[in-house]
């Protein structure tokens, strides 16, 4: 067996392992719609048309990808290192609030470019800070980070709300929100589209993270930490430091996602705003098996579903969150195909 054939076969197998579940999810999702007395083809048609075929929709889809990709990058670092940072929502939201509050103030002193850069850095830093406590607890005492990050996430979203209402509120609006950043002061758009340059940043981040994990000593150390902690100790890795570094990078990237979303799209944060993207991205990262390139594809798919799903749901008359049903089905079928593939290989081996 030559290497090329081997790689070709593996690529086909990987593609099938993705395409089969996607098809199954769409078919079963369609059957559910049918059972509800709705038109599945109509629904999918609308989704496709609204999110990808129309230029406006496509732009929206791509814009929607930016925060998802940055969060995915953050989660890939953590998950590959065996650290389950599920506190993305708190990290995201606090970073968003911090950069939203800072940008209009800073904009009065600094030019647009430096303002945006500083705000993004602050966003990343705030995300990192919010993961510090779980990081230290994990590194020093081995406290389960799933619990601590989730708890910090609840605290973070509440704190963001309180900060807007009590401290950072723009008194000129009736709804509690931060001071709005003028559209011209937001992240620059790409080539006359409505897509902001945060998308490029996000794609770059995902690719860099992927390369870091697969091509560098640091990435390999993190992977060892994730695969076998005892081996990491045995090999002399500084487990405590690495653990803290993972939290810092992961939460920093998620914080950056919050900053980019605010600086690129909304320009302000309302007290009741919480897109809860942190947990939405978790299944995507699993679908992509922590692979940076694959996650770009899944994010596009999900983003399109989100953008198209909203209006399609309205037109077909199903709940707006029907998209989540599709994602759930996708996860289910992915796991199923994986399981069948494993047991088939086992029986072949026997």
């Amino acid at each position, binding site marked *: 067996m030559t290497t090329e054939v081997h790689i070709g076969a593996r690529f086909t197998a990987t593609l099938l392992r993705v395409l089969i579940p996607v098809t199954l999810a769409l078919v079963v999702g369609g059957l559910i719609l049918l059972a509800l007395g709705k038109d599945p083809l109509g629904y999918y048609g609308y989704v496709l048309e609204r999110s990808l075929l129309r230029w406006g929709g496509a732009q929206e889809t791509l814009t929607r990808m930016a925060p998802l990709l940055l969060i995915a990058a953050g989660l890939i670092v953590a998950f590959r290192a065996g650290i389950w940072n599920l506190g993305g929502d708190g990290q995201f939201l606090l970073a968003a609030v911090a950069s939203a509050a800072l940008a209009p103030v800073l904009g009065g002193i600094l030019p647009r470019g430096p303002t945006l850069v500083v705000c993004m850095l602050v966003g990343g830093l705030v995300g990192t800070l919010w993961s510090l406590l779980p990081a230290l607890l994990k590194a020093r005492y081995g406290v389960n980070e799933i619990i601590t990050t989730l708890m910090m996430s609840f605290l973070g979203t509440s704190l963001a709300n309180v900060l807007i209402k009590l401290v950072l509120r723009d008194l000129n609006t009736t709804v509690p929100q931060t001071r709005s950043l003028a559209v011209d002061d937001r992240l620059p758009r790409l080539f006359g589209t409505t897509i902001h340059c945060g998308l490029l940043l996000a794609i770059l981040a995902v690719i860099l993270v992927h390369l870091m994990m697969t091509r560098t*000593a640091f*990435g390999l150390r993190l*992977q*060892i930490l994730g*695969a*076998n902690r*005892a081996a990491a100790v045995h*090999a*002399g890795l*500084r487990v405590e430091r690495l653990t803290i570094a993972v939290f810092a990078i992961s939460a920093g990237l998620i914080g950056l996602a919050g900053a980019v979303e605010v600086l690129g799209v909304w320009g302000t944060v309302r007290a009741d705003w919480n897109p809860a993207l942190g947990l939405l991205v978790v299944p995507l990262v699993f679908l992509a098996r922590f692979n940076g390139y694959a996650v770009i594809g899944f994010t596009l798919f999900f983003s399109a579903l989100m953008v198209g799903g909203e209006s399609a749901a309205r037109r077909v008359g199903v709940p707006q969150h029907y998209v989540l049903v599709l994602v759930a089905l996708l996860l289910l079928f992915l796991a199923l195909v994986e399981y069948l593939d494993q047991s088939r290989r086992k029986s072949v081996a026997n």
Partner: protein
Amino acid sequence: MTIEATQAGRGAVVALRHVTKHFPGIVALDRVSLDFHPGEIHVLLGENGAGKSTLVSLLAGMQRPDEGEILVRGNPTVIDSPRRSMDLGIGTVFQRVLLVPSLTVIENLMLGGSWLRLLARAAARSRFDELSALLGTRIDADAPVSGLSLGEQQQVEIMRALWRDEKLLLLDEPTSMLTPQGVADLGRMMRRLKEKGVALILITHKLLEAFEFGDRISVLRLGRLAGEIEPQRLQAMSESQRTETVIHMMFGAGGDATPLQGHEQELAILLGRKLRRASAVDHRKPAALVVQDLATAPDFAETPLHEVSFEVWPGEVLGIAGVDGNGQKHLAEVLAGQRPVRHGRIDLTGLDITRGHVPERRQRGIRYVTDDRLGEGTVGTFSVATNLVLKEIGAPPYWWHGISDWTLIHRNAREQILRNDIRTPSELTPVGKLSGGNVQKVLLARELDAEASVAVLNKPTYGLDLHNQRLALDRIVAAAARGIAVIVISTDLDELLEISDRIGVMFQGRLRGIVGNDDAAADQIRRLMTGAAAA
């Protein structure tokens, strides 16, 4: 043989009939027929890879034969799960202790019960007393398992195996981790069970044990039944006749002239005989490693070190004997830099390295081959290539400013695979898929490299078959001959007597004494192992 087996099949509790089991690329068992009779200790001898483990897993219900059948009391029976195996009265004691350390003895024994029923303590207690009487053991039912010695834990394992019913007891290499006293206790227990009419299967690769305990000896070789010695014949034979017969079966020699040629070393392990080796100690040089008054902090369920002092010279093999769990793990880890020093001092050729961590010590030539090969020595899901450089991450030439040179890492792995005869489909194969012997070759290749000056090896032959034990010992001796100061920690006294220049004995975290490896060494060591003061 087939005819014999069929005839004898009548009285057997459990019998195998032409059982065949394939695994990818190998025939683990090839038309094997065996009978296990009540009131008889049936010894299965054979190297690892001869099919013993497969046989265990078939009887324990973890695997099913591809061909042939298993008869239970004469009826063809499908054993499709461990639970079914236990229901049929087949109890298995595996090589590793499979008890929950934090639970008490009686709780561990009750674990297998139906989960629909409430925990029936009174019934469990009476069964426990019954088995204690049967086995002649005196274990406290309410003691936590973590506080028991390995021998006692094994007794609990035997109780669990007999918990449901006492028809057939299968013991897989039960003596490998026991002290001489523990082996004697086990022997007494087996005889009691035999008198009660239990059929026992004793799996071992030690000839002397086979002769001491066995009523009937069957030899497996490359998945086939290479021969069987019936009780009457066995009794009629002299010791040397038995040895000769069994060795003919094991190594398949033609029966004439020199059947043992080329197998002297395997035989040495088999018979517990000692082979001398020429010492390579260089006392003109300063000691490679000086340990003074070393102590470690206690850790959960582990024995810490107290006042451990010794020296090792370049080219010397210092054996560390002792019953498992007497501080050996801490000693290995503290030398490797994996565990902090609480008190005392470690010098490496005159340089104080007491505070150094793993990377610093490794850079100065200290190497550590752990006994937990898959648990911490390697990352099972990572490739052989990655595992070969696991302790070099970030260092040139495989990393250049932190960027991995995978081409070089893979080329290095291919060279190492050739040089060390590591049997793997490729350098990209996950190391967890290799056999134990080959995983150990990966570790030895990684640790006994050209830059090593002090090597600590914890149980380097544990769980390996004779051939791989031999290879590992050879590599260790060769490393010493290159001038490396070698510390070998082992619970197998025979192998220590074979390769060591001096042997130290650990007892309750202390080094009870170091004896020169002369003819009186074995007796002295055995005395020290029980905690007696140095003579």
